């Protein structure tokens, strides 16, 4: 909990002791303290690659930042990363590796390439 959140709760306790805590004030405090957690948010980066090797070129990408999808970069030359490795170098952490079991059968292909899901928590 950061200093600002501690102050908001102390103020709420003060209102309670003074008998001035209303439902609206409690609701607002809850919104400010809980809804924003510790002030950090999880951003997601979906990368579809040609293989499990993080240096292989990408087939697709999409960014989820600040709780919403980012506009897709066009053309492909403007994609922020050319590989999973480049995203890692930029601070993204892999939170899900591709499901290798789906790639064992050469006669069937499931979905788009090998999907890595990465996060930044900021």
């Amino acid at each position, binding site marked *: 909990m950061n200093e600002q959140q501690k102050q908001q709760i102390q103020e709420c306790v003060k209102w309670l002791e003074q008998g001035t805590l209303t439902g609206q004030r409690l609701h607002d405090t809850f919104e400010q303290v809980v809804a924003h957690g510790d002030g950090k948010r999880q951003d997601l980066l979906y990368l579809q690659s040609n293989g499990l090797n993080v240096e292989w070129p990408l087939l697709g990408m*999409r960014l989820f930042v600040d709780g919403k999808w980012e506009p897709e970069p066009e053309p492909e030359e403007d994609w922020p990363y050319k590989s999973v490795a480049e995203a890692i170098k930029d601070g993204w952490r892999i939170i899900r590796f591709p499901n290798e079991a789906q790639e064992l059968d050469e006669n069937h292909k499931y979905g788009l*390439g090998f999907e890595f899901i990465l996060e930044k928590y900021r």
Partner: protein
Amino acid sequence: MKTAPMITHDCKPTLTDRQVIKFCRLGYLKLEAAVAPEVCAKIIDFFREKEPRDNLDEMGDACALMEEDWFLQGLVLCPSVIGAIRSLVGANFIYSNYMANHPGRCPEPDTLNWHVDGGNMHTFALNYLQVFCLPQDTTVEMGPTEIVPGSHFLLSQSSQVDHYGAIKGSKKCIGPAGTVFITCYPIWHRRYKAIATDCWRHVLKYWYYRNTAPTRDWVIEDDFDPATHCNDFSMIAQGEPSYRRNFLSAYDTARMYMWLCGHEDEFKYIGGTAWPGPIPNDGTQERYATPPSLLNGRKVAYQPEANSILSTR
């Protein structure tokens, strides 16, 4: 209540072996400005009268156009389109009496999510075609349909492709008025964002169905032999982004092609450099494990068989 029979039509096939293989490989075929400008103008007039009411349901049902002979002859049975339809779904094909429209307001800042249409089935069989027609000049700014070439072979449901974003090699269905896209039903698609202002983008969507067993009765070129010219089966060999490792897309294409030829049973996945793997070839050497029906009567010495380890466990 009496049920009306399905409506059939026949004409000469116009696609060549190479074009049929290209359709199998990419899952779509683009016919630019195939429908006549005067037909497109009448279609746009039909929708323009409805646009001010801003009712997507009203504009989405274009069945009233099917009552018009100019529409039936000019679009559904358009001579420069039905030759391709006949090549892919065979003689006496059936056409749908339902006509849908996808009206899209411009601007529309959000790109819709990728999806495959309901009732999709991933199969090497081709019993029906989903066709899109652009009745107006359609640009990227107007939020065209975007498709992923080759995705008809990638097993997936909408719930699994919905979160994908930019995809390498995706194509926007743009073109002059009258441009037609003939597609394989399970191809991934979406509506791209529209930055144009104060206009509508219409896309007619309709279907054709097979009414006879598949057979290789399209146009056979003298200078092309599918038994030896294997590069046409492979996305990588054609310089197209492939979502399959190496040249595995060639096997998918070849299997669908052999199904269309009426000989899917001859398709064997042998692997290595067997047909239709695209090893360097000047088109004169017979390839190992070529399907017998492609050998023009030559007797095949030996047809190898192989089962994947996965299929025997």
